[in-house]
């Protein structure tokens, strides 16, 4: 019963967030209910249960993946899953294998609602957009294309690392516009120009800081992060932002009317 409520709530949520929703079968007629079968699940009797799946609206989008990579660090994901998601106290997310299924919405569920082995529910902090960016990032991490074999035979111990470490992602060219930078650095996962998402609207931020030493104050806030100005959801620090990009972003935000 609980699961049905969850699905119903999610459908409502996704409709509201205008995310893509599609059935598993293109042959569905108007009359037949949609069914669902995740690749990782076995259907009893081979009969798929009714339900729908959701797909990642940003799948393959490089900027969303970069934004997700930023969130992966700033929202403390790397504290449990390791830098690059290679595994720490939490499982590896870079091995192309998924404990709870690797379909778009299965990864989404894991992050949004959490999992009972201590994976916190991040939906409240990140919202649907933030979670989709994380999904996009995780899907962009190149998975090994061979089954790993660890071998210590032959050359000295150096040959031990036959499990391929994920290749670093190729750096994309810097985004030229402030809007592009906001997307690249993951700001738009939580902020929009004129409406509150997870964090406040950029226009409201501009209004709040206007008349103070606004450029410096806001730059410090973006760099160091903080909590309490707009409510209990923390703003993560962005201390690795290049100074020039930070400057351009702040100039753009403070210029909003």
């Amino acid at each position, binding site marked *: 019963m609980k699961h049905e409520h969850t699905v119903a709530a999610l459908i409502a949520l996704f409709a509201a967030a205008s995310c893509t929703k599609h059935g598993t079968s293109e042959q569905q007629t108007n009359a037949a209910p949609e069914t669902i079968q995740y690749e990782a699940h076995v259907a009893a009797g081979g009969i798929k249960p009714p339900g729908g799946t959701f797909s990642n609206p940003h799948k393959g989008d490089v900027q969303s993946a970069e934004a997700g990579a930023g969130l992966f660090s700033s929202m403390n994901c790397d504290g449990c899953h390791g830098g690059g998601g290679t595994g720490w106290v939490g499982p590896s997310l870079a091995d192309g294998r998924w404990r709870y299924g690797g379909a778009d919405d299965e990864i989404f569920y894991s992050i949004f609602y959490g999992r009972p082995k201590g994976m916190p529910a991040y939906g409240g902090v990140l919202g649907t957009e933030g979670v989709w960016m994380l999904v996009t990032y995780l899907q962009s991490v190149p998975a090994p294309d061979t089954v790993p074999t660890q071998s210590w035979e032959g050359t000295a111990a150096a040959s031990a690392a036959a499990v391929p470490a994920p290749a670093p992602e190729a750096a994309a060219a810097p985004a030229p516009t402030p809007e592009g930078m906001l997307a690249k650095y993951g700001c738009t996962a939580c902020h929009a120009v004129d409406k509150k998402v997870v964090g406040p609207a950029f226009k409201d931020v501009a209004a709040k800081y206007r008349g103070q030493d606004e450029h410096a104050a806001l730059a410090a806030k973006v760099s160091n*992060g903080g909590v309490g100005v707009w409510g209990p959801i923390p703003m993560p620090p962005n201390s690795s932002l290049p100074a020039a990009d930070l400057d351009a972003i702040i100039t753009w935000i403070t210029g909003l009317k």
Partner: protein
Amino acid sequence: MKTRVCSLCAASAAVLSATIGVVSMPAQGATQAEDGQWTMPAKDYSSTRYSGLNQINADNATRLHPVWTFSTGVLAGHEGQPLVVNNTMYVVTPFPNVLYAFDLTKEGYPLKWKYRPDVSPNAIGISCCDVINRGAFFADGKIIYNLLDGHTVAVDATTGREVWKTTIADVANGETTPMAPFVVKDRVIVGAAGGEFGVYGFVKGLDLKTGEIVWTARNIGPDADMLVKPGTFKPHYDKGDELGASSWPNDGWKTGGAPVWGWMSYDPELDLLYYGSGNPSPYNAEQRPGDNKWTASALARRPSDGTLVWAYQFTPHDNWDYDAVATMILADVKIAGRTRKALVTFNKNGFQYTLDRATGEVLAAPPFVQVTWATKIDLATGRPVLDPSRQTGASKGNVKNVCPSLEGGVSPASPAAYSPRTGLFYTSTNNMCMDFNATRATHIKGTPYIGAGSPYQAGPGGNLGAFMAWDAASGKKVWETKEPYPAWSGALVTAGDVVFYGTLDGWFKSADAKTGKVLSKFKVGSGIVGNPITYRGPDGKQFVAIYAGFGGDWFLLSGDVRADDPADVRPAADFMKDIGRHTSQGGIVWIFAL
């Protein structure tokens, strides 16, 4: 029914006599009558891990061989140690914290019972460093231990029935509870881990009969929270009011860490409970300017009501994750020609501290491994003399070659032992350094609050670990056996002058306590991160027990040892590529005899 009542009486009588023995011989435990049992984590209140049993000695230990094994059914780091009370061996597993009671009087040691608590699996992800448990304490006819998800339980030692269960910590707040409780008179003292989650570190005193929380003492924060009472707090160095709050920026102490996940000691004459506090949160020290008292400190309290009597901060403004929760051994040590009632501890920060345990004064603090973050400890002020080039923080970028690594010169998970016969301390050590790259961190309740990356490399010589005998009076190493991998087991020493330890690649070793000569070794099937114990069996013979079960921090760092989860495949650790050649996860109790 009659039998049950009688064995309970015998168990209570045993602990009563043990308590009386400790009272009459507070510091040493050496000359007290050896009852052949192991009723508390470190054998005695002085935490010596020394047993008066001497059937196994340096002449015959070569004949040691396994006589019994048992799979716990759990794959995780098997830290801690069994208890042996009234011819029963008690074993607590890592999460899900099953308690087994083996009947040592019957062939094959069949189970009397096993207790299966309801533990939240959320604790798996909220524990920083594998789902380990550091063991139980026997008192008042009860086996008392912590469940990983923030509960302390007392289980009837005879029947296996739960007597009480108390919530002491909140997993949703980043708190987990791997430490072994410590019982003094009618108080059960417990604390919580969570230095990687920005907890508000504490210890609590529970009523032994009911489990009711009698007092809660924070390790940081305002005097009232720390149970600093007027006229009772007399630290040797840092005097003043409200230091636990004023040495932090704003409300930094509220998420400042100072977890408690190590070991405790007790001096009945002084009526002082000793324990250490862990690291300050977050790792990025620039978010918390100040000394950050009393993180990375030793604290001495009255066990009955928690009152803080003295505190000493080993690593002010810690910026290397140097928790101070290592075992604190109470022993008489001759310093400058004078025998002192000392507290001896091998700190993660690489210095071996000998403190006056009545006052917290530092009597000696030599380095016991390679140290680069400080040049020495100034005995006049008690403060380290820092090397400015090894101070870390987000603005400093990647600070290279900090020694020891944050695994510690020795891990607090690997408690040392002390033999009053040789006058020497025995401990595993790590020979590892790190680069420390701090970044700003955001506190989001229930998620990690760290802000640093810290890759490791081997220290001088290339071996990652060692086991050594140490003379605290001279501040010198007496002998050392190098180990290829970090050494992560506790130590045991006996009146037979034999010392026991295990290695990360799965060897269980005995050695001559005087010379270090290895007398026996046996491959136990999985890496050893637990602590050996010894006891006298019902047949009068001496036995030695140890857990095999690779894990703790090494489960995170060398995730390639994993084989149970097809959805979690990891590369080998770059500094220890071949440990997976020698071990995988496991969970086995081993017993050895002549």
